[in-house]
């Protein structure tokens, strides 16, 4: 058993975990953060994507002990102040959701992209979500959602800059 300390969505957490436990199981089973999904358990589908220090990772492939000392962000932390984030709203507006099972992982991958590349090209977007499988939407609307979110965020920034 290992004692680990980390933050999840800004909240400090402390857990005692076996060496074999994955970060995904820690989040879902211990912390009841079931927004993060398991689609394969072997790093092939992206449903379990969360951010580790701002970068997207597949939490099914990471051991819980490796989270020690790091900041984790999950879909549950995406909504801000009781409202949806720009990214979440963009997913709704472009119709990027069907069954919704891939959606949390998609949004986290997109969030990771926008963290490092606020004005991504379509190639950047495709690259960022290429590891996230979606069987429902055919991806077009998801790519459009990330584009829309980036544009809206840029617009908001510009608006602020001018005022």
């Amino acid at each position, binding site marked *: 058993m290992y004692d680990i300390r980390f933050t999840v969505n800004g909240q400090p957490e402390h857990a005692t975990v076996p060496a074999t436990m994955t970060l995904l199981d820690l989040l879902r089973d211990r912390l009841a953060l079931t*927004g993060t999904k398991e689609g394969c358990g072997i790093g092939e589908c992206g*449903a379990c994507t969360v951010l580790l220090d701002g970068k997207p990772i597949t939490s099914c492939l990471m051991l819980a002990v490796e989270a020690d000392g790091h900041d984790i962000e999950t879909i*549950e932390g995406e909504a801000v102040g009781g409202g949806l984030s720009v990214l*979440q709203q963009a997913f709704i507006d472009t119709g990027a959701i069907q069954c919704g099972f891939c959606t949390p992982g998609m949004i986290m991958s997109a969030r990771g992209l926008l963290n490092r590349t606020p004005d991504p090209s379509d190639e950047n977007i495709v690259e960022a979500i*290429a590891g996230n499988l979606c069987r429902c939407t055919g*991806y077009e609307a998801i790519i459009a959602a990330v584009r829309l979110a980036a544009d809206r965020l840029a617009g908001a920034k510009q608006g602020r800059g001018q005022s």
Partner: protein
Amino acid sequence: MTRELKYVGKPIARADAVDKVTGAAQYTHDLCLHGMLHTALVLSPHASARIVSIDIEKAEQVQGVRAVLTGNGLCYQLGLYLQDKCILARDIVRYHGEPVVAIAADTLDIANAACRLVEVQYEALPSLLDPRDAMEESAHLVHPDLHTYNYMKGVFFPKAHSNIAHHQKIRKGDFDRAFEKADIRLTASFYNPPVQHVPMETHAAVAQALPGNRIEIWTSSQSPYTVRHLLSVCFGLPHADVRVHVPYVGGGFGGKAGLGLEPLAYVLSRAAGGRPVKVVATREQEFNTLPSRQGLHSTIEIATSNDGKIVALKSTYIWDAGAYADYGVNIGRSAAYSGAGPYSIDNCWIDSYVVYTNKVFGTAFRGFGHLEVLWGIERAMDLMARKLGMDPVEFRKRNLLKEGDTTITGEAFTSGHGNPQQCLEAVAEAIEWRTPSAPPIEPHKVRGKGIAMLHKAPAMPTSTSCAVVIKLDEDGGADVLVSGVDYGQGTYTVLRQIAAEELRIPIEKVHITWECDTAFSPYDWQTVASRFAYMGGNAIIEAAADCLDQIRFVAAQALDVAPEDLECEHGTVYPKGHPDRGIPYSQLALGYTFENGNSIGGPIIGHGRFIAKGLTHLDPDTGQGLPAQFWTYGAHSVEVEVDTETGEIEILNIVSALDAGKVLNPKLCVGQVVGGVVQGLGSALWEGFVFDEKGRLLNPAFVDYKIPTAKDIPHRTQQILLENPQPGGPYGARGVAEHPMISIPSAIGNALYDALGIEFTTLPLNYERILTRIREKAESS
């Protein structure tokens, strides 16, 4: 004057969107009940073997193991159409991956560890891997007891002491004579491999055996009432003692229709003294244990006159049902009555055989056999056009069903069916059919265009029905109860639009409960066949009318006017022409109270229902009859670019036209089309099970079984939605959810001929296959 529509036909956002973008949506995967056990399975390593012995003693002794089950004590036969399946294998295993032992334990780790201690002795039997071999008289029988199984009589025809689970015949006119006399004849054969649905949420069920022989189930299913019915029949329980909940479902595509893991979860819970038991398929089990889409071998013979009129068509469809054919039989049936494409053919002969083999079994998959059948038909149409020296579009136009024609089952084609011709013309125009593809810059690349038609009707029993209940709330809002499942299609959003439209209230005030619960939600057969917007939509219209009748009845007394002199708008009922004298629904929803305190009426609850109209069984010898509530027609055109050095293919454009009758929600409808097109692309280019010579599945993981990613989508897609109204459809709508996937492979196969001059007959069209054929062609020329 027709009232302007406020919600129907508008691009309203999904009702479930907020739950899904915040991670709040709870799926069966996410469910955790107090004391819940977890399940692991021991799977058959053989495609065909006799179980000699199973030793579970060591497993039972593991601390934390609560139930260990083998097929021995479980003498149940399950199925919707054909009861050919047991809960765990008994005596013999019929496919590699079939569950043999199930263990429920305190944790998944314990259950898995216990499974490793189970010892099963097998005696390998010969395995049948090709359904064409399985049809031979001498073939061993996958189900020696087939003649004893229960099945839906008059609809399916399992052949005793054979591997044929169903033989569907279609006979119209005199094929032999017309074929003999025809000017031009063509015969071609095609193949589709079995493929997987790949819902991102794998199958999952939680069951609890309750005291007094009651069952409570939570399941990732398309079919709450069918699960309830089949469990109640199987275990001999009153229907009301089986309660089925369906929370959010992470994709289905047909794979979650009928029964899945529910019976197993229940018998484990029963054996574990009533502790709730969760069974979740691993991704590997989703591939090799849970059902897939059947493979298909087709042989198609077509004869035409010199001027391109098809005079005769004969098809033989041999379906690779795999080890169980409960659902497969209905695919063999429905793909037969659609089995000549959307064409007018006077002399038609179809044999569709659903044949057992020793492979993972098949079930419904978006398109229900039509993608497979039309892979052959639509490729054969191009082959024939070439033989005639006709343009493929012109050849199709010459033969498409038109008003006054009859289908191959004798149904009269009317303008109410929609317009296949318009679909064809629309996709041809959008892809600039008459203009050859511009040559690519790189000399080793070539381009081509292809076109294909599609059609499909819901495959469902003649008595299929559904009901809707609407409860009015104190605030004048409405709660809509249904048990069709929205596993991504957007049906609930569409039903909400219709409810708001019909009840004359703002859409924000219409609520649809996301968890179906057979204890509260009214009956629906199951959510398959692209029929729920049609049937549920009609039921909602009736339920809303029932609510309005009740509203008017009470308001009439309150306002002292005749009910027929009242009208409703903006959540208010008022005497015609006097909106100022209205009463808001909120004052009527639970009953109306006069100033002096006297009250009348009571809670307003409306109900509506719909049952399939006029359908008949098909004649067993000729297949003649009325199988379809409605048909949906469509077409795709594609442009592809092929790298002749690598065999890689780029999809430049896919144009899809569907005659939706009425587009209830353009945003959702386009979403269905794009999603279906890309899923069809998977079947066209990459997907297909690969078995070794012993029948072991070699690609049960995403590493070896590739589905489309964001990198693989077409450069461009276009959606053309036609609106030739469907008589009897809600607002004239017909189903479109499955259709976009159908004929994508055919259109691409046709485009590949245009690009390369090579005829492909086998799916998938992966780069190895394309490159091999390019090289063969280069060598032979």
